[in-house]
Structures are given as C-alpha cells and as structure tokens.
C-alpha cells in the first residue's frame, strides 16, 4: 500500500553554535521545555498531522538521539508498516559516504522512500520549535497543483537579509529565491520545511548528485534548479510560533517563552496538539515547606528546597535549601547545592553547582549573555561563572570563569 506522504527529518546538524550543549549530542536531541527534546516537535507534528512514516537522517553524535527515538513508541510511531526509522549514512557496494549535504542525505535514502511509494515527501528540519499542521500544508500544496512548496514566515524587513527568502506573486507562486541577500525583495523567510511531489524530488536529487560542482544542498542547489526549470513552486504562509533554536540565546529565549504561553504563542498545554516525549518515569516533584516557586515549570523527580523564579526545571533537578534559581533553564538530573545562585543561564544535564557557587547574572542594560554549563560538569563550591561564560570542564572550588 502506498503512503500519501512520508516525512524525512534532517537531524544531522552538529549545532556548533550551541557549543557546550552539543559536544556529545546532536542538536535535535537537545532538551527543551522541561520534558521534551527539540525533535519531539517535528515528530509530534507528524503524528498529529496523520503522517506515520518518518525517516530521521542522522550523522553527528547519534548515540543519544538513537536511544531516545528507540522504536518510536512514545510518538505512536512503532508501526508494522512505516513508523520511525533512524537513517545514518551506510556503506554501499560503491563505497561509503557521509551525508555531503541536505539533498545528498535524502538522495542516499531514495531506496527507503521508494519502499513506501509515496506521492509526496515532506522534508523537515530537526532544529526548530514549532507546532505546525503538515496536513494543512499538504492541502495547500495539492490545491495549488504545486510540484514543490515551501513553508514561509513573514519576518520584519530589517531582519530579512539574515534569511533565505522566497519572492512570490499574488498567487503565492514563487518567482525567485534569495539566500541571505543584501537587498531583500521579499520578507518571506523559508522555514526549511518543504513538500515535494516524490517523482519531482527524485528526478532533481539524481540530477543534483550527478553534478560534481553541487554542494548537494536544498537551498543552494535543488531550489535554484527547480526555479531554473520553471517548476510549479508555491510559498505556504505559516503564522504560528516558530523558533530556530540554533543559538544559546535563542534556545534560552524559547524556553522562557514556554513560561508565558499567553503572550509568546508557544502553548505546550494544548490538548488538541500534544507534544509527545519519552518520559523520565520519576516520582512526583516536591516543594518543601520553606521553598519558594514562582512563575516556573517543574516536572517529575524535582525536589525544591530553595527559591525558583521564572525558570524551567527538567526531570530530577534538585534545588537545595538556600539556593536561588532565576531566569534559568536547568536540565535533567542537575543539582543546585545550598546557597548557590543560578541566574539567566542554561545548565545542561547532570551538572552539579557547588555550595555558594554563582553562575550567570541578571543582564545589565543591553547585554544578552546567557551563561552555559555543559553536561556533567562540576562547578566547585564558591566558584563564580560569569554571564558570558561557556563551561564544559569542571571548575575547582572558589575558581572564577568569565
């Protein structure tokens, strides 16, 4: 039986701008929003949109991601026919290749796609926080009689030159593509989410692979080639919450926006569009008699004895009495010891912040520094970590890092 549409999720990105957080972790596996990982968003979107077959293309630090995805059961993607499949590069008779670019990653998995004989293929990106109904996108694609559609967001004109832009006519037909232009002709930024008719995509992937000068990239090669040939290309306007969490600052901001769903537009509390994740299985969280918790999100396994304000705590975080946590994202299993101050920062998984240590600081006017502590790091008692520090090695008692 053919599938109408299957999804290919590009999850190979190293996420080098997340530094300490992605030393041992592919970017889509980065924890987000208290109990999720970034990849939960596209996976949940797929399931909620009725897509039951997803190929995940990995190549950088796939261990955590592989284990997390497992058989796909938390997303209801453990299926007899279809389901979720992790697709790393593999050795072939003709030799082996890493994925050279986004298009090459799909090219190397043409046999996977052909097993499902889909009419359409949606290409997704594993590093965005976004709730999106892909079935509505497909409806648009079909109504327009498109061969290729791209989801676009309107961005402020002054920021447009940071994005790949689609220039479209009044019928949303794409006439031109500008990659980070100095003089933008459009403010429709590509979200990196594409729907292709499979026959068209396959033809262009094969053609692209044969071109020795190609970078094998969707944005730089495939889309320009489609334009060159005058294909039916349309821009699908998306206006919901969308955030590329490619930098420490944007990741921190997106987490903080979760705390304010009424204004930010990212509502994780929506029963109509649930975001699924693999759960920790820990017991309930606890708040001690003398603890203070304000405007925060707390999940299973947390024990709070100190003060937590405007922060997100992941599973199993301990905040000891006398410790203060403010404007912070504290990932699973980390411990903030007595008297420590943790502010305006991201603390990765299984970190220990020693007694009376200080991490980060509330930013002064015009500053944006988000201190970041990498996974498993030990910050010694009384140590001080400055607001712009990026720590991925243990810090001794009383030391300072700025």
């Amino acid at each position, binding site marked *: 039986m053919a599938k109408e549409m299957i999804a290919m999720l590009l999850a190979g990105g190293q996420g080098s701008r997340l530094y300490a957080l992605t030393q041992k972790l592919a970017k889509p596996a980065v924890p987000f929003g208290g109990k999720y990982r970034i990849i939960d968003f596209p996976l949940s979107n797929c399931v909620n949109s009725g897509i039951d077959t997803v190929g995940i293309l990995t190549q950088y630090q796939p261990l955590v991601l592989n284990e997390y995805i497992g058989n796909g059961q938390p997303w209801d993607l453990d299926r007899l026919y279809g389901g979720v499949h992790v697709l790393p590069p593999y050795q072939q008779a003709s030799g082996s290749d890493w994925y050279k670019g986004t298009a090459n990653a799909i090219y190397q998995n043409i046999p996977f796609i052909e097993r499902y004989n889909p009419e359409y293929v949606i290409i997704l990106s594993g590093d965005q926080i976004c709730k999106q109904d892909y079935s509505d996108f497909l409806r648009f694609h079909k109504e327009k009689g498109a061969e290729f559609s791209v989801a676009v967001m309107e961005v402020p004109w002054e920021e447009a030159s940071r994005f790949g832009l689609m220039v479209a006519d009044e019928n949303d037909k794409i006439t031109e593509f500008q990659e980070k232009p100095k003089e933008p002709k459009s403010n429709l930024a590509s979200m990196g989410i594409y729907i292709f008719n499979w026959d068209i995509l396959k033809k262009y992937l094969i053609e692209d692979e044969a071109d020795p000068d190609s970078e094998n990239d969707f944005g730089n090669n495939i889309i320009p080639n489609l334009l060159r040939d005058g294909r039916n290309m349309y821009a699908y306007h998306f206006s919901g919450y969308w955030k590329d969490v490619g930098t420490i600052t944007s990741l921190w901001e997106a987490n903080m926006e979760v705390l304010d769903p009424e204004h930010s537009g990212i509502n994780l509390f929506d029963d109509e569009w649930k975001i699924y994740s693999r759960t920790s299985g820990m017991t309930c969280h606890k708040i001690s*008699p003398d603890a203070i918790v304000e405007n925060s999100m707390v999940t*299973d396994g947390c024990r709070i004895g100190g003060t937590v304000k405007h922060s997100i705590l992941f599973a199993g975080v301990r905040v000891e009495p006398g410790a203060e946590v403010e404007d912070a994202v504290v990932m699973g299993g980390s411990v903030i010891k007595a008297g420590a101050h943790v502010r305006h920062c991201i603390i990765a998984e299984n970190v220990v912040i020693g007694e009376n240590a200080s991490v980060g600081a509330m930013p002064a006017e015009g500053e944006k520094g988000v201190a970041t502590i990498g996974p498993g790091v030990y910050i010694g008692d009384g140590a001080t970590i400055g607001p712009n520090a990026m720590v991925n090695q243990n810090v001794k008692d009383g030391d300072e890092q700025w």
Partner: protein
Amino acid sequence: MVNTNTNALGIIFPNSYDSLVPDLVSERLMASIPFAGRYRMVDFLLSSMVNSGIDNVSIIARKNYHSLMDHLGSGREWDLTRKNGGLNIVPPYSEKNMKVYSGRVEALASILDFLKNQKEKYVILADTHTAVNFDFREMLNAHIESGADVSIAYKREEIPEGFKNISTSVGDLYYTLSIENDRVNRIFINSSEPGLQNFSMNIYIMDREALMELVKSAYARGYIYFERDILAPRLDKMHVHAYRFNGYTAHLSGMKSYFDENMKLLDDANLDALFDPNPVYTKIREDNPTRYLNGSRASNIMAADGCVIEGDVENSVLFRGVKVGKGATVKNCVLMQDTVIADGAKVEYLITDKNVTISSGKELKGTDSFPVYVAKGQIV
C-alpha cells in the same frame, strides 16, 4: 537457555480488601486506586515483580476491573508485553468453568489449566492493598534456602486500624503469625491484639506443582481461603517459612488511612523509602510539566505533572492534571487526577476523586480525623 529471569511467576489478586475502602472502589478495585500522585496501587507490586526478574504475571480479577484493564493495557509500561509470559489479565467467566470467586482457592482453581502449562518452578501470590518496593528475588532465595513448602512475608507492625473494622461477611480476612525460628506455627485470623504483631503482607511463595495439588484438593472439598483453609490447619505437617520484611509499606485500610498514607509521602524519607532502590512504573499520560503561575504559592506539596497552580497550596498531594485557580486555597488535601479547585474556592482536609470540580468561591472543610471525600466526577 540463558538464565536471565527469576524462576517464578506472579499471581496478583486485585480485589483483595476492596471492602475496606468502599467509596474508593465504587467504580474500580483496590489495584487501580490512585496513590502517591501518579501511580495506581497495582504499579508497586507489578514493578517490584518486574524489577525482581519476573516476567510472567497473572491478575485474577473479581469485579470492577475496567479501570484496571484501562490502566494496564498490554502491560508495555511494565515491560510485560512479551511473547512468552508477560501480563495476563484473567477476568471472571473467561473460561467455561470460571465464575466470580470469593476466596483465593476458588480464584486459583479457575486458572489451574493455565498454571499447569507454565514453565516456572515457583509461584508468587500477592495482594494489592500494600504499596511497597519489594525484592521478590531475595524472598525467593530465602524460601529456597529454608527448604520450606511455603513462605509468607510479614512485617513487624501494629495491625492497621482499618483492618479491625473488616466485615467478615464480605470475606476479607487478615492474618497475624506466630513464629518460632522463622517457622510459622500458628496463623491468627482477624486478630485485634494491640501492639506489634507479625502482620502478614499476604505475599506467598511456593512450588507451582505443589500449589496446584493443594488447590485441587481444597477446591474439591469446597474450601475458599488459602490461609484459613489450607495453611492454618496444616502448620504441623507443612513447613511454612516466615520471611520478615523490614522496608517501607503503605497499607490502604480505609479512607483515613488512604489520606494518611498519601500525606506521609510529603516526608522525603518516606518517599525515598517507597521508591528506592527500584523504580516504579505506571501508565504514561502525556502531561506537561506542572506550571506555577505568578501569584501562586506552594509549600510542602507533592505534585505530579500536568498541574496548573495559580492559587495557594499547602501540605497537599496533587495528582496529574490538577488545577488550582486564582485566589483558591488548598490545605491538607489529596486531590486526584484532573481535580479542579476553581478561583477563590477554599478547601481543607479534602480527598477528591478523579475529575472533581470544586466551584468558584465554595468552601469545603473536613478535619484531620475525618477528611471529606468527594466522589469521582462530582461538581461541588
């Protein structure tokens, strides 16, 4: 075959002591009573069995088992979805010769054919009125070492108050043991002795084939109770080993004890004792982390995921998806799944069952000795 698993199968009686908590089991059974914020009573036994390497567990239901079926599903959360063994829920009338049983003997007699075809050497029998992190492997080893015919787990404790109100007409009995050199020499039924007793946990281990023989002959004679009718009269001939358990237990023996046992878990030492060393598994609900909004205040509480707290919560246990509105105060309460305490409502010493709503501005107060219980789905 590589010996990865414990050579025992588990049999759980989910309806035992239903009569002690009539309100809580009006639409469920003992095994599916919500406990400790995000669990059901059966989770503790099932998880203990799985963590002890037992992967063949049968649950013999008597009545009101829909909520249990819904909770357990295929047994996946407990890693009991297996080709061989796994989770086996046995409702009444599932076979021609099966009826609604009244005691353990009848229950076991109804699954004799099943028992005959199993490969495990030992059988572990258990009830679900006790939340416990139990190492069955250790008990099995002690059983084998003792050379006994049967082992009974007991705890040295006072008989929980609720048991003393037990109604014998419904057929729930409880047992205390007289022990000499780890061997049971008398079993007392429904004793009301004050002070520390050897209180049976109703956890038994014995040889599968020996159990089948005993059950067959007892059933033929019309006996009902395993303890009263099989064990108690044979203590001189049978070697019944007493296995002392010293860990944490939470017995549900009435509404007050339900309240107290939940509240006790606000003490970290108790919570850790119940949940260490091994994890307890439960059905997963897709809940968000719990949200504490501006203006909320929380002090000495245990809360599951999916709660939204805008009001003031103190000394309470909140199950999954509880909402506490603006200006509402919640003090000394146990609020089960999806309870809503609307804006401005004030509640104290309250136990709410699932999906209860306390409307805006309402006040409802119980006392420490008589917490008020609001039944499932009620709107106050």
